[in-house]
C-alpha cells in the first residue's frame, strides 16, 4: 500500500469532451418510428439544469481508481486483527462463481421455471446454513447483519402477534456488552430495550436477568460467545428461563465463527438467529458492503419468515413426478412478517458463501472454529504480560485487553492502534465493548499463519515497550501511513460532504 497518499479526486481529472464509454448500436433509427403515437415528454418534466459528471477517458479513469486503491488496506494486504469483524481470507474462487455469466444477467422477475438453477443455489445455501445453525429454515433475503437482526425481531413480533400477544410483549432484553446494533435494531422494530448486566467474568448475570423476565418480554438477544469472546456457559438455563415466560431467544450470529465444528445455536435453545455471510462464510467486506444477513428459525416459526420465500417441491406430487422446471418455487405467505427486500437478497453474495461452504465441506468446516480459537488464544497468552487482560480464562475466537498494563506514560488504546498501522497491520477494534475504558479487541481468524501471528505479537510487544521508553512516538502515531490522524471534530462541525461543498469552502 502507498506511503504517500494518492490525493486526486475524479472531478479534478475531468476535461471537457472526453468520454470513456461507447453506446451499442441498436440498428433503430428515428425513421423506424413512423406511426408510433405517444404522449410527448413535456418540458417541465425534463431535467432543467445541466448534469455535471466527470468527463474522462478510460485509461485516465482506470489509472485514477487503481492509484486510489493503493491508499487502502485490505485482507489481501495484511493482517486484520479486527475484533468482532471476522476478517478472514476471501477466497478467489468465490469471486469467480459470483460473477458466473449465467447468473449475472438473470433479472429478478424471471419466471421461476427459467430460474431453477438460481433458486436451487438459494435453496442449497439455506439448507446448508440450517445444518450449521441447527435451524429449520433460513431466509437469505436480508442484506446485512443489521437487517438480519431487524428481520429476526420482526419474526419474533409476528409470532407473538399470532398468539394474540403482539401488543403486550414489547420488551427485548439485551446484555450490556452487546453490539450497538442490537438495541438499535430493537428500536427500529418498535421494541423497548432492557439491559441486563454482565458478571465480573463477562457473562450474563442470571440473577440480574431473573427479575427482568415476565410476560411483557418478547425476546432476549444474545451472541455466544459474547463480545468478550467468552462462551456463555449458562445458556441452556437462560434459554429455559426465557422460554418459561413465553419469550423467544435470538442469536446474533456475529460470533458464530468459533462455533463452526463445535456447537449449534439451535441446540443451545435459540429460536431465531442471523448469520453474517461476510464474517463466518468468507464473503468480502467490500469497504462496508454488500453483506448478507440470512435469518434462521426453529421449526414452527418458518411461516413468519419474510416474503418472497423459496420453497422446494417434492420429487413427486400425488404419485406423479414433478417436472424439473417446477422443482423450486417462490411463495408469498400471508402469515409472513411482510417483506424486507424487493428481491431474494444479495444473490451474488449468497453465491460466494455457497462456494465457500462447498470448498470447505463438512471436513473443513469442522476444523475452522477451533483453529480460530487457537489463533486468538495464542495471541492472548503471548501478550497478557504487556497488556491488561481483565478476564483471564478460556476465551474463543476473540478477546479483549483493557489497554496497556503500564499506563503510566498516558499512552492510550487509540495510540497503540494507530502505532500498529505504521507496522503494516490494521488496528484491532477499540473502545468496544463498553465494559472497559481502554478496550482493545483482537480477533485473528483461522486463516492466519503462525508466522503472521508471531510477527504481530512481536510488534505488539515492541509497542508496549515503546509506550514506556518513547511515549511521544506512540501518541503521535501513525507516522508512515498515507495520511496522518484526521481532524474528526472539524469534519463533524463543518460537514463537507460533496466536492461542490469542498471547492466552495476552500
Amino acid at each position, binding site marked *: 500500500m502507498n506511503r504517500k497518499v494518492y490525493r486526486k479526486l475524479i472531478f479534478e481529472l475531468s476535461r471537457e469532451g472526453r468520454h470513456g464509454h461507447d453506446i*451499442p448500436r441498436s440498428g433503430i433509427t428515428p425513421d423506424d418510428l413512423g406511426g408510433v403515437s405517444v404522449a410527448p415528454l413535456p418540458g417541465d418534466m425534463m431535467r432543467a439544469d445541466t448534469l455535471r459528471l466527470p468527463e474522462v477517458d478510460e485509461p485516465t479513469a482506470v489509472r485514477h481508481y487503481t492509484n486510489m486503491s493503493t491508499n487502502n488496506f485490505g485482507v489481501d494486504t495484511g493482517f486484520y486483527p479486527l475484533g468482532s469483524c471476522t476478517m478472514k481470507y476471501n477466497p478467489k474462487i468465490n469471486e469467480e462463481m459470483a460473477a458466473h455469466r449465467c447468473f449475472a444477467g438473470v433479472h*429478478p422477475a424471471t419466471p421461476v421455471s427459467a430460474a431453477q438453477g438460481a433458486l436451487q443455489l438459494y435453496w442449497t445455501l439455506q439448507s446448508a446454513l440450517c445444518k450449521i445453525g441447527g435451524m429449520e429454515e433460513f431466509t437469505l433475503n436480508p442484506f446485512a447483519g443489521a437487517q438480519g437482526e431487524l428481520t429476526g425481531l420482526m419474526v419474533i413480533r409476528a409470532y407473538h402477534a399470532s398468539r394474540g400477544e403482539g401488543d403486550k410483549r414489547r420488551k427485548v432484553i439485551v446484555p450490556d456488552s452487546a453490539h*450497538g446494533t442490537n438495541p438499535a435494531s430493537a428500536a427500529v422494530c418498535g421494541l423497548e430495550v432492557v439491559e441486563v448486566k454482565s458478571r465480573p467474568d463477562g457473562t450474563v448475570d442470571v440473577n440480574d436477568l431473573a427479575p427482568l423476565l415476565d410476560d411483557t418480554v418478547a425476546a432476549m438477544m444474545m451472541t455466544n460467545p459474547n463480545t468478550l469472546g467468552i462462551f456463555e456457559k449458562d445458556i441452556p438455563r437462560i434459554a429455559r428461563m426465557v422460554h418459561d415466560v413465553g419469550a423467544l431467544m435470538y442469536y446474533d450470529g456475529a460470533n458464530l465463527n468459533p462455533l463452526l465444528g463445535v456447537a449449534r445455536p439451535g441446540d443451545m435453545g435459540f429460536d431465531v438467529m442471523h448469520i453474517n455471510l461476510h464474517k463466518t462464510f468468507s464473503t468480502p467486506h467490500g469497504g462496508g458492503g454488500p453483506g448478507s444477513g440470512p435469518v434462521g428459525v426453529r421449526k414452527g416459526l418458518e411461516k413468519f419468515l419474510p416474503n418472497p420465500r423459496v420453497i422446494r417441491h417434492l420429487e413427486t406430487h400425488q404419485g406423479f413426478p414433478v417436472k424439473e422446471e417446477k422443482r423450486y418455487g417462490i411463495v408469498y405467505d400471508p402469515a409472513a412478517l411482510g417483506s424486507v427486500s424487493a428481491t431474494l437478497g444479495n444473490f*451474488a453474495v449468497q453465491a460466494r458463501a455457497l462456494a465457500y461452504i*462447498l470448498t470447505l465441506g463438512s471436513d473443513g468446516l469442522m476444523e475452522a472454529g477451533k483453529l480460530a480459537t487457537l489463533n486468538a488464544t495464542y495471541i492472548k497468552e503471548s501478550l497478557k504480560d504487556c497488556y491488561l487482560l481483565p478476564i483471564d480464562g478460556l476465551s474463543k475466537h476473540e478477546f479483549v485487553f483493557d489497554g496497556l498494563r503500564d499506563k503510566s506514560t498516558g499512552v492510550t488504546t487509540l495510540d497503540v492502534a494507530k502505532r500498529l498501522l505504521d507496522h503494516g497491520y490494521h488496528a484491532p477494534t477499540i473502545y468496544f465493548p463498553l465494559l472497559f475504558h481502554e478496550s482493545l479487541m483482537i480477533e485473528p481468524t483461522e486463516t492466519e499463519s503462525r508466522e503472521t501471528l508471531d510477527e504481530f505479537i512481536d510488534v505488539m510487544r515492541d509497542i508496549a515497550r515503546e509506550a514506556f521508553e518513547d511515549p511521544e512516538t506512540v501518541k503521535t502515531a501513525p507516522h508512515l501511513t498515507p495520511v496522518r490522524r484526521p481532524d474528526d471534530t472539524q469534519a463533524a462541525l463543518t460537514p463537507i460532504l460533496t466536492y461542490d461543498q469542498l471547492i466552495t469552502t476552500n
Partner: protein
Amino acid sequence: MHRYFPHTPADITEMLSRCGVASLDDLYADVDPALRLSQPYDLPQGMDETSVKRFFDRLASKNVETDVCFAGGGFYDHGCPAAVRSIAARSEFLTAYTPYQPEISQGTLQYIFEYQTMMARLTGMEISNASIYDGATATAEAVMMAVASQRKRNLVLVSETLSPAVRAVVDTYARYHGIEIMTIPAEDGVTSRQALTDLLGQRGKEVAGVLVASPNYYGIIEDHTGLSDLCHNHKALLIINCIAADLATLATPGQLGADIACGDAQSLGIPLSYGGPYLGFLCTTKALMRKMPGRIVGATTDTEGQRCFVLTLQAREQHIRREKATSNICSNQGLMTLWVSVYMSLVGAEGLRRINDASRMTALYLLKQMTADGRARLRYPDKPFLNEFLLETDYNVGPFISAALREGILAGIKIDDHTILMAATEMQTREDVDRLAAIAKTCV
C-alpha cells in the same frame, strides 16, 4: 488441514503448548458436552476448485439462458464497461473493512466522497449518504427519516403508483416501527392530486411525509410540479422515489422541491444478478443532514494539514447512540458505490443522456412493433414515459412470456393475464424487438 488454513500439525502442537492446553478440544472445555456436536455436519466433503466450478456450471445450466431482457420494474438490463468490474475486483477495495481507520482507508473514503458528490448532482439534492442496501430499503429508511424529523407526526401518505415490491418493504418497516401509512389513490395511472389534497385537508397535521414515484411502477413520468408546495403548506416532507439513471434526462427531485430523494441505483450499470447486490441511494437537504440514516463521508485535514476524508456525523449512528440512533444500519453498499462511481465517471453525463435516448428509441420501436397488428395497446396512452410502458394484450400474457423464454428473450413482467410491463435499454437491438414481435403474433 484445508488449504485456507496454514497451520501444520507441528504448529498446532507448539501453539497449544503456549496456550497451556493439551488439545484443540480443551479450548472448549467450558462448553457443556451436551451442547457439543456429536457428529460432523451432514454436508458433503470439501471440493477442489474444479468440482466447485462444475457444481456452479450444473446449477447455471438449469436456468433458461436469456440474452435479451425487456423486463424492468425497477431493475434494468443496462450495459457496463469492462473497466468497472476490473476496478471493483481490486482486492484493496474488495477485501477492506468499513473505513474506521482513515489513515489506511483513504481509497474507500475517496470513492464514497466521489459517489456522494455524483449522487447529489444526479438527484439535484444538496447531500447524499454513503448508500443503503437497495432501493426498497432506502425508501423505507426515507419514510422513517421523515417521521423522525417531524415532531408528533406519524402518518406517511404513499402513492398507489409506487412499485408494489418497494411498497411491501415500506409497509413492513412502517408496521413494526409504528408508522401509519395511507395510500394516495391513482387516477389514470398517476397519483391523484385531488385525492392527495383531500387527504392533506383531512389529516394534514398528522402527515410527516408524502411518498411518490417518478417514473412510477408503470413507467409513467408523473407531473409532480407544485407538489412540494402542497406538501410544505402542510409541513409535510416530500419524498420522491426515482430511478437513478433516468435523472440525467428527467426532472430531478431537487428541481421538484423534494426533501428526500431515494431509490435504486442498479440502473447505473449494476448487473441484474437475480436481485442483488444493488444499491439504494438516499439524498436530502442540508437542513435534514443530521436526521439522515446510514454512513456519511466528509472532507477534513490531517495533523499535517493535508486534505483527507473520514466517516463523519457518527453521533447519529448505532455504535454511539444505540437504541436512539437514526437507524440500525451500520454498513453501506461499499463496493457498489465504487461500481456506480466508476460507471458514472466513464459514461459521463452526456453518455447517460445518450443511453436514455437510445433506451427510449428502442422502447418506442418496441411499442410500435408490439402494437402493429392491433392486438395490443398502451394501457395509459396519454401519459409520457421514458423507456418503460404497460401494454394491454388481447392474447394471454403467460404463454407469450413462455414462448419468448424458449427463444432466449425475457419479454417483460406479467401484471395480469392481459397486461405486461415492458422496458427497453440501449442493450436490445432492432432484431431483438422484431423477434419478440414475431413471437407475439403467434400468441392467441
